[in-house]
Structures are given as structure tokens and as C-alpha cells.
């Protein structure tokens, strides 16, 4: 080791504070430090960059019909964004379907702006500047407009209720080469994969904490990720085939998790590992 480094390290390094502590104390200090890491990230969330882009897109005329999202009804009336996300998914009579936010945005693009379905769902998940996702920017903007609003998914509506029940079944459905279900990792308290804490989504508090912090800026990817992405990537890791974007199953599972978060204050888009 070069001398400067050695001197500096010997003089000051607090390294080793972690090494040398055994067992539970070690795990605890690791968890505490990771908590500090997460806190330090809260100060500036790049999700704001997506929110700003999405806000601009919301009011701009789009598609062959040159119609803006001001015509898009997210459930509270055309163009009403404030608080809309906290009440999704919901049943939309015009589409005859229960829809989550992403599905609804795509529906508005196709049915109001005249965007071809293939174009509307082309870049649903972004990947850097080479493949930016308009949809994720729109999602960031819309969800940011529900910050501080209590989750109230209309579970008493029969269609929504049915999707909730189907989503619950899906949550416990074990399959694939590894026998995984959502519940395998998200069915108990205080568990982690490697060092990542896993919310217990079978409990209201766990579902609330998790659902109200998505979408999120993922520092590991440098991207804002929507809830559709979250589910899609969970199933990849479950060793399942690919969950189709805006499919019934994706909406059912979202309805189950969003419904379980009812009563909690929405607090996204967040910043996460």
C-alpha cells in the first residue's frame, strides 16, 4: 500500500468498525448503516426529473389526433390528475375494464390521441437516453400529484372487488422451476433477501409501506420504474415467463396490493436501491 494511503488510513479510517463484530450485532450495524444510506438519498430524488418531463407531456397535443391528456379521464373527470392515482385501479365503463394507471394512460393514447397500440406500448420501460420511456415520465407526473393523498381504491365496486380476489390468488400461486410465489418472499415479517428488506405484503402495514412508495427511482438502474415494471421484474426473478404489460393478471395483482394499501398516505415516487 502506498505510503500516503497507509498513513491516512492508519490515521483515520474507521474501517473495521463493521469487521470484527460478530453475529447479530454485525447484522444490526449493517442494517443501521444501510438505513443511513437510504436516508442520505432522500435529499434529492431524480424522480423529479421524470415528473417534470411528464408534466410537460401531459398538456402537450399528442398523437395523430393532436389531443392532449387533458381529455384523459383517470377516474375523477377528464384531465383531473390531483389525487387520481390514490383511487386506482378502478372500473372504467368506457373501456369496460378495471384499469391501473399505466393501462389507462395507454387506453387514452390509443382511443383519444389515435396512437397505434404498438406505438403506445413500445417503450413502456425505459433504458437510458437511447430508449426513454414517455410512459414512465407520465406515470411519475401523475403519481406525484397524489402525494399526501390517502389510498382509497374502490374495493366495494364489484368489478374491482373481483380483480382483488383474483389478484390475491395470484399472490399465493406457486409455480415454475423454483416453486416461487409472491408470498415466498413477501409473506412474512422481518425477512430479507441478501441485505434487502422484504415488505410483508400479506399484512396491511407492509402493503401500505410498499405500495405507497412505488413508482420509484431505482439508483441501481438510474431509471424511474413504474408499478407495472415492479411486477414484471418480480416475475422474472420468480423464474416465471414474462408478465404481459397491462394484462389482466398485472391489473389483478396491482388491485390486490393497492387495495391492501387503502388508508395509507401515498408517498411516491420514492427513491430506492
Amino acid at each position: 500500500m502506498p505510503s500516503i494511503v497507509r498513513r491516512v488510513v492508519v490515521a483515520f479510517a474507521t474501517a473495521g468498525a463493521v469487521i470484527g463484530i460478530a453475529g447479530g450485532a454485525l447484522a444490526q450495524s449493517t442494517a443501521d448503516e444501510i438505513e443511513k444510506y437510504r436516508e442520505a438519498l432522500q435529499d434529492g430524488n431524480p424522480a423529479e426529473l421524470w415528473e417534470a418531463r411528464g408534466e410537460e407531456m401531459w398538456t402537450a397535443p399528442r398523437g395523430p389526433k393532436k389531443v392532449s391528456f387533458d381529455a384523459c379521464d383517470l377516474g375523477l373527470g377528464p384531465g383531473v390528475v390531483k389525487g387520481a392515482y390514490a383511487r386506482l385501479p378502478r372500473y372504467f365503463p368506457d373501456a369496460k375494464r378495471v384499469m391501473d394507471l399505466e393501462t389507462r394512460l395507454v387506453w387514452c393514447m390509443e382511443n383519444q390521441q389515435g396512437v397505434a397500440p404498438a406505438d403506445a406500448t413500445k417503450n413502456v420501460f425505459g433504458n437510458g437516453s437511447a430508449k426513454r420511456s414517455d410512459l414512465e415520465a407520465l406515470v411519475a407526473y401523475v403519481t406525484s400529484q397524489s402525494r399526501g393523498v390517502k389510498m382509497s381504491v374502490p374495493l366495494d365496486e364489484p368489478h374491482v372487488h373481483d380483480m382483488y380476489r383474483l389478484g390475491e390468488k395470484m399472490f399465493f400461486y406457486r409455480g415454475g422451476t423454483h416453486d416461487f410465489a409472491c408470498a415466498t418472499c413477501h409473506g412474512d415479517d422481518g425477512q430479507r433477501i441478501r441485505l434487502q428488506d422484504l415488505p410483508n405484503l400479506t399484512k396491511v402495514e407492509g402493503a401500505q409501506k410498499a405500495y405507497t412508495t412505488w413508482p420509484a427511482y431505482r439508483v441501481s438502474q438510474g431509471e424511474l420504474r413504474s408499478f407495472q415494471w415492479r411486477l414484471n421484474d418480480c416475475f422474472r426473478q420468480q423464474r416465471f415467463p414474462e408478465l404481459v404489460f397491462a394484462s389482466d393478471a398485472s391489473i389483478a395483482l396491482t388491485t390486490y396490493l393497492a387495495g391492501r394499501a387503502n388508508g395509507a398516505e401515498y408517498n411516491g415516487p420514492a427513491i430506492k436501491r
Partner: protein
Amino acid sequence: MDHPRRDALRRGGALSLLTLVAAAGWLPRGAAAAETWNKGAFETHSLDETMKALGGAPPVPSKDIVFFSTPDIAENGAVVPIGITSNVPKTEAIAILVEKNPNMLAAVFDVPAGTDASLSTRIKMGQTSNVFALVKADGRYYVNSKEIKVTLGGCGG
């Protein structure tokens, strides 16, 4: 011969790690700052290489340089928050170096009079490493370091 420049280097403690940064030109003062970028300093690939090129007096270790909002463990190396405050009087510049990154130097900040010698930003770390906070104050160089562990993550391994 460019005597003023050589003199400046000698005063800085002839060729330490810090004077490399200085030699390649810490930020010039004033409005011209945004137009220069110190290629040489940003292309030192390892500490050994940097040190060999220097071989001079090291910067003075100083506890007046403090890390804040800088965790001991980073959950992800892609974004590591670093906060540095220099309590060394007349701090002119602050640099962040990561010992085990492919290029050591991450960032150099020129701190004009009237600006607090305290800032925070976020860097990338390829692996667990010492992070150096280097400070130039009143023509002299000071350093402190902190080890930051970078953990593995993810269900997919």
C-alpha cells in the same frame, strides 16, 4: 520557462497527490472555470500509478475535514452519497477520490470566498474502497479518508 508555475508547485509541497491535481490546474478562478477540464488528472487509473508519477510529500492528514451524510455501507455502488465539510481555514477547493475506481479522481470543486466549504454529491463506486476528501487551503493540501463498503444485492444475484 514558466517560473511562476513551478514556484507555485514548490510552495504546494512539491508534487504530492494533491499537487498533481494542482499541476494539471485546479480550477482557474472566475468565469473561465467551466471551460477547462483536467484530462490528465481524471485519467489516473490506479493509486500506484498516481503515486509513482508523484513521489513527493503527501498531503497532511487532517481531522478538520469531515464526512457528513456519507454512509459506511452503500446498498448500491451506482449511487453513493458523499458529503464533505472542510473546517480548514481558507479552503479553496475540495476533491473526491476513490482509491479502487478505475479512474481515481471523481470530482473537483472550486470553492470561492463566500461559498461554504461544505457540499454533497453522489458518486459511483465499483467496489468497497477508501474514499479520499482532499482539500486545498491557503495553498496547502490536506486529506481525510473513509472506507465505504459496497454490498451485493438483488434476488437474481
